[in-house]
């Protein structure tokens, strides 16, 4: 039996199952949570290409699955990232039971995970761009559940991802047909320019970030958090795979300089925009862009241990963004409008969890985002003192913005429903708060994810 066929077949079955159960409140999300969790664990632990015996029957799970002449392969080079996506999905589907993200969240969310998993497993890996485009299409259905006015930001996302796909596929042709080994300076510049365009879109680098801000104005924050984090994570894994596979690209000084510059641009502009927002979701959307910028800075800084920092941050971000999204969505359920003034007074735990998640994105001390920035800044070369200043400034600005929103959330101007946090919700919210604090206090808990993920990009970690 082929492992990729089993994984993607099961994803399709689970998606269909949750679609059939969509009129029930909990069942589709419970099915999606269990399914994603099982698939994630299976991807991490399944004995691929190794003969095994079970109940006297011998079997072997093949790592490859050939469709129409192309290979979808599961190997040590992509197991951890694929599992990461499914486990992220499990976390969001589980928390989604309390966030009311809409009926399309579980079935289409599963489909999106399958497509993003496919993007990491397809060979040659350049075709990942097509899977990412298909995933962006599915993301539109998650962002626009039935009955609501379509969100303009999601259309912009679709346009941007189409342009990224075209740029990356054309780059692939340049590399395949003109020759990787005989790269001339002219060709290298062409390739880097096209790749820069493609990955700038996938990594939400300004000015290709605007869809996120537009979407934050109208979309359920929990759905937006899910889509933003899985799309960006898949884009990041794709970038790392590119760098891991092409030696000339990872040793090209232009690439590291571009990553550093874009990272600092994102951290700087993201934090400035975040501090200026009068909408809570938009404030966090821009904080997320600044957080992505720190990731790019870590890639470009070429520090020893930089890859570990990047991968750890990807994991921490999922928890922070899920915490923010869950808290914000629960507050919105009782609020009269999206301004959320005073929402913390009647939803104190939801507000606290949401603010803690936002602080994690800011890199505030005692949250998961802090150890990453601490490690990055401690090892930063003296030459990049401007970079250090920008990252410190971004931490400060976003923390102040979150502080301002804490004051607004707990202000007495509340005109929504009187009370919402029931006993189950309270326990879930307390669990979320503890998880955020645990990651901040004991960052070494993230190591079980980082170790196998580093092995997936062996060339980037000599």
């Amino acid at each position, binding site marked *: 039996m082929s492992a990729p066929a089993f994984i993607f077949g099961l994803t399709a079955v689970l998606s269909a199952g949750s679609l059939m159960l969509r009129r029930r409140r909990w069942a589709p999300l419970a099915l999606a949570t269990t399914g994603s969790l099982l698939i994630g664990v299976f991807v991490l632990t399944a004995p691929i290409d190794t003969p095994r015996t079970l109940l006297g029957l011998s079997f072997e799970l093949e790592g490859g699955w050939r469709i129409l002449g192309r290979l979808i392969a599961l190997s040590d080079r992509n197991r951890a990232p694929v599992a990461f996506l499914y486990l992220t999905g499990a976390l969001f589907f589980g928390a989604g039971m309390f966030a009311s993200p809409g009926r399309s969240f579980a079935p289409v969310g599963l489909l999106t995970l399958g497509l993003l998993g496919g993007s990491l497993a397809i060979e040659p890996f350049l075709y990942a761009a*097509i899977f990412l485009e298909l995933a962006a299409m599915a993301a539109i259905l998650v962002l626009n559940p039935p009955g609501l006015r379509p969100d303009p930001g999601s259309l912009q996302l679709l346009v941007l991802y189409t342009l990224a796909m075209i740029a990356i596929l054309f780059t692939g042709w340049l590399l395949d047909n003109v020759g990787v080994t005989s790269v001339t300076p002219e060709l290298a510049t062409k390739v880097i320019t096209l790749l820069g365009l493609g990955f700038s879109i996938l990594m939400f680098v300004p000015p290709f970030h605007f869809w996120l801000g537009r979407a934050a104005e109208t979309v359920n924050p929990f759905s937006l958090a899910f889509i933003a984090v899985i799309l960006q994570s898949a884009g990041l894994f794709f970038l790392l795979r590119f760098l891991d596979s092409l030696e000339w690209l990872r040793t090209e000084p232009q690439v590291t300089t571009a990553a550093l510059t874009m990272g600092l641009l994102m951290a700087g502009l993201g934090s400035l925009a975040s501090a200026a927002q009068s909408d809570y979701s938009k404030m966090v959307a821009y904080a997320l862009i600044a957080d992505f910028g720190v990731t790019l800075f870590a890639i470009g800084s070429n520090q020893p241990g930089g890859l570990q920092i990047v991968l750890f941050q990807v994991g921490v971000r999922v928890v922070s963004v899920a915490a923010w999204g869950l808290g914000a969505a629960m507050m919105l359920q009782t609020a009269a409008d999206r301004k959320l003034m005073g929402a913390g007074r009647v939803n104190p735990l939801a507000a606290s969890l949401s603010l803690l998640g936002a602080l994690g994105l800011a890199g505030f001390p005692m949250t998961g985002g802090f150890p990453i920035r601490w490690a990055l800044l401690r090892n930063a070369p003296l030459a990049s003192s401007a970079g250090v200043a920008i990252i410190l400034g971004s931490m400060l600005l976003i923390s102040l913005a979150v502080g301002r929103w804490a004051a607004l959330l707990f202000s007495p101007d509340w005109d929504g429903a009187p009370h919402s946090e029931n006993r189950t919700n309270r326990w879930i919210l307390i669990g979320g708060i503890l998880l955020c604090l645990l990651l901040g206090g004991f960052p070494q808990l993230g190591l079980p994810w980082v170790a196998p993920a580093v092995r997936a990009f062996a060339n980037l970690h000599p």
Partner: protein
Amino acid sequence: MTVLVVSVTALSLTVLTGRVARIGLLAVQYAAVSWLTGLSLPLQVAAVKLVAGMIACGILAVSESKQERSTPQTVGREFGTLFRSFASGLGLVAAFSLGQRNWFEVPDIRQEAILGSTVLLTMGLLQLGLSGSAFRVCLGLMTLLSGFEVVYSLIEPSLAVLALIASIHIGLALVVSYLGLVSGVAEDAGSTP
């Protein structure tokens, strides 16, 4: 001749406002694109694009008929017809001048394919730039992708990639139909001046 058909359909898709007419023109455009692709691929393989295009047009037509019955369309802010015609004319001139040489630098490509592809890419981008309505964005993306495919089919004739890109056309039609049917205001979504 095929380039002329592609130019007329792409221009009309940008200028016209009637949705049914534009779906018909899109179908004609898909036929022309399949022909252009057939210059470099076996005709039966190029026919995959035609089939996918026709399915996409079918989906758009069905959703359009359902929307007409259920909800009247709210038309978003758009550029005027005169401006769109002028911009399209300029776009076509630019595309014809650029398409005179092999600017893709793809070897063994026919002049007709370069010109057709350049026209589609230019007009697709123009459609995306001139409107933010979901339906027009969908048509713009389909035109842009068609232009890309004419060249990319020559570079990468793999059946798997052909099928995946064909599924994008169908996916686009499904997404726009979903937005239109579910909310009834898809035409208005994201309207920008």
